[in-house]
């Protein structure tokens, strides 16, 4: 490349380059069953933000196990049970890409 940053490993091979595409980990948090959480991350203003949702600690398999609704709006990630539904415990992984 004509400009940018390459970082090499000890063996001389390329380990990382600014030509690569990365997602930054902004936050990770656990949302308890039936709980609501809303977090704002001003540092990611203008970035693309995604929130990955993962069930945690063995949700029930013999009944309806609802994940909460997760809404990403700008720099705010909101998690809450769907209307008239209970929700299971989940992990939220918030990632951002410039």
């Amino acid at each position, binding site marked *: 490349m004509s*400009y*940018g*940053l390459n*970082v*090499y*490993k*000890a063996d001389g091979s390329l*380990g*990382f380059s*600014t*030509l*690569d*595409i*990365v*997602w*930054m*980990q*902004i936050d*990770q948090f656990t949302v308890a069953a039936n709980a609501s959480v809303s977090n704002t991350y001003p*540092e*990611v203003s203008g970035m693309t933000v*995604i*929130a*990955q*949702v*993962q*069930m*945690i*600690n*063995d*949700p029930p*398999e*013999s*009944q*309806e*196990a*609802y*994940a909460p*609704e997760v809404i990403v709006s700008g720099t705010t990630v909101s998690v809450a049970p769907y209307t008239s539904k209970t929700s299971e415990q989940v*992990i939220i*992984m918030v*990632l*951002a*890409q*410039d």
Partner: protein
Amino acid sequence: MSYGFSAINTSGQVIISDEMESLHFLGKATLNSNDGGGHANYGASGRIIFTYTITTSATPLVFIKPSDYSRWHAIMTQSVSGSTWTFDVIVSGTSSSNPPELFCFVNANSTSGTTSTHGLVVWKSDGTTRTFDSRYSPLVITGGGSLAPASCPSDDGCPTTTSGHPWNYSTLDHDFGSDNQYNSQAISGTYTDLMFSAPSLAQGVYKRQAEGYKCSDKPWPQSGCQEHWSTAMWWMMYRNAFRIRSGYFDAGWATYSSGYSFSSTFESGGWFGGGGGGYSTGSMPYTAKTINYTSNAYMIADSTRYG
């Protein structure tokens, strides 16, 4: 900024920052066991659940690297005890051979152990928290997006309940296979090198129910009709699962559990005094529907960059 470090690419995107943490390769989770597989019933290919563990004080972001790219994969759930994380991975088909590999990534500050003296390390302004450390193979994403599976998992369409069958009718006429029900997004790269991070959220239960009936003449001196009813019901539970194939990432389904029940009853007043009986292999978890049907974020990465 007045101080610190940012690496910005030609599109103006921040690639390395002293304020935001990059994800780095922690290691591969250890395969501990599988449940033996099962539920290859009613036209479905069945599934097997592999269990993995890895130890870290951070919450890992996990990528699945299939060994057999024709099978559907997903992390069904994860749990933590102390600093040991356990992952249950569902894979379509019942074979315990070719289990997938799980590549785990954590924030830079949760990595340790390298003795390498080459590379680039970036700290936050506190001087102690690493946000980037090239010695631990930073996570590089080659693709991603948001994708939901097809709304109805069954290849034959959503099964129905029908009546008017002969009494004691118990012949299944529905294919519960789900390999052809998926939504796709285009991806690039040599697909047999790729791995994905995509939790399984959507799940569904569907049933095929056939209701039988007959009316037999009551013996003399009685008159009229003695009614007989029967119900045969096959059900399948599915979990959202994913597949990488040449040029595409698919969100589809894998079988999770299945069952069958049969019951028959007849009214009193005929040859017999009324009654009935039944047979069941497991209970349907809930009434037929798909739940958690939403697009979940997924990411694709090249596994060959990591140990």
